[in-house]
């Protein structure tokens, strides 16, 4: 297969996983996801000679950088929101079931939000993208040992924050799983 064919296969296989990755980090601003994902794959196309045999963690790494740019590119993001303002899927409705209920996992998100961005990302990659430590290392562009250490420390800090928020924690937690990669 040529580089272009390998890229096209990765695009088709991982488009939705990358979309979920982006959507999880845009805090419900669903209308912006499509444009950021387009940018992720445009950057990945430019760097397609670097595409590894297991491309998804690498694509997550590209997406992480694109999201950082998207946060800076306020004007561009605004334009997209304007364009997609009537999108029925927009505005976080996949997060909030109804105006009268607390968003699922809101307090866990609150605990997560108290951590540093680096801690948050290693935890999200592990829990939401379900990456193994060696895959986290690819996504974060660091060594496996460093990734394992970051995860260990981040877990401990998350635990501390959870204990602060909910000392008496209910144990019945659903665990939807990520599929289709790795």
């Amino acid at each position, binding site marked *: 297969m040529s580089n272009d064919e390998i*890229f*096209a296969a990765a*695009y*088709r296989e991982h*488009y*939705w*996983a990358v*979309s*979920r990755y982006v*959507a999880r980090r845009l*805090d*419900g601003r*669903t209308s912006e*996801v499509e444009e950021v*994902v*387009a940018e992720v*794959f*445009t950057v990945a*196309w430019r760097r397609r000679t670097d595409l590894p045999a297991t491309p998804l963690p690498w694509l997550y790494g590209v997406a992480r950088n694109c999201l950082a740019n998207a946060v*800076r590119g*306020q*004007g561009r993001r*605004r*334009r997209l*929101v*304007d364009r997609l*303002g*009537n999108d*029925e899927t927009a*505005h*976080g*409705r*996949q*997060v*909030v079931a*109804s*105006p009268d209920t607390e*968003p*699922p*996992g*809101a307090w*866990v*998100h*609150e605990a*997560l*939000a108290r951590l540093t961005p680096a801690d948050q990302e290693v*935890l*999200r990659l592990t*829990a*939401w993208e379900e990456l193994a430590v060696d895959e986290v290392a690819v996504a974060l562009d660091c060594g496996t040992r460093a990734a394992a250490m970051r995860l260990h420390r981040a*877990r401990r800090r*998350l635990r501390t924050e*959870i204990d602060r928020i909910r000392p008496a*924690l209910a*144990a019945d*937690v659903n*665990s*939807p*799983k*990520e599929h289709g990669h790795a």
Partner: protein
Amino acid sequence: MPDELDLLRGANPVPADGPHFGDGPLGHDAERRLNQLLHGSGPFGRRRTRWMWSLATVAVVAVTALALLLAGPDTVPAVAAPRPLLVQAGSTPVPLARMAEIAEAAAADGSPTLRKGTHVQTWSMGMSEDEPPITLPVERVVRWRADATHTELVVATDPRHPGRPVLSEGDGQPRMVEDGHVISEQTFGPSWSDAPPESTPPHDPGLLKAYLQETQYPSTTLTTRELLDAVRVLLDHWTLGAPEDAAVARLLADAGGLRPVGRVTDRLGRPGQAYVHDGQGSRKMLIMDPATGAVLGLEDTATSAEPEWGLKVGDVMDYSAWMR
């Protein structure tokens, strides 16, 4: 007790088996973008073309000249980003709390009333890594009918320069079009969504705050900056009545962080009172009607340069002006 990773898994906001972004065939837009990448059209194709020209500059001088000649009217001009509104020298700033009082007084008779849909003129900057920023002026009108259907009309126009060609973007390629060029005109089927910003906004400031939080940032308490973003979303969906205008004014006054700077004339020629919020990387300026306290506009100006995007300090990245 579940461990912290289990708890985090349970709080996944976009699970793979959820209602959105689930695995499956690509949509039309995703397929089109893949084709653009594979076959060299779109922004990346342009970049590659430029690079090839630079490799063979001497040999293709004549060809380049011809290409520039033929490109003529479709060539995107180098347009400087719009400058921020000027505060009138010597004008007296009106505190936002006073503006909220004005809005509350104006709402005493309950008119005008709330209407679903919007009428907004925007100037939005588009950026790329290899082209200078461009600003796209767009007018958008959304009207809802009694049967819960709605229409949306989007045209390219710049009311500051009526009748003159304007820059527009079709299929990712910016080009000059005539004033009033219809970008899209769509009718949407019935929708009875009961979630903000589609549900009716309340006119109690406390309830409105909760509504706006759900609109934009459901998991965290709104900062003033986020509140301004949420107000923008609200105004992009609703034409507020006087009671809702008063609630917005009170909410913003109570939020703090908005500094009154004085009188301005907005891009539609309307008099306004301006309030500034300085944040990281940009400054937001809220423009309010001095007679009614209604929000007239919101301007977002860069306060730090982003050389990789061609963004300079003082460039207006986004400007929205709402009308009834």
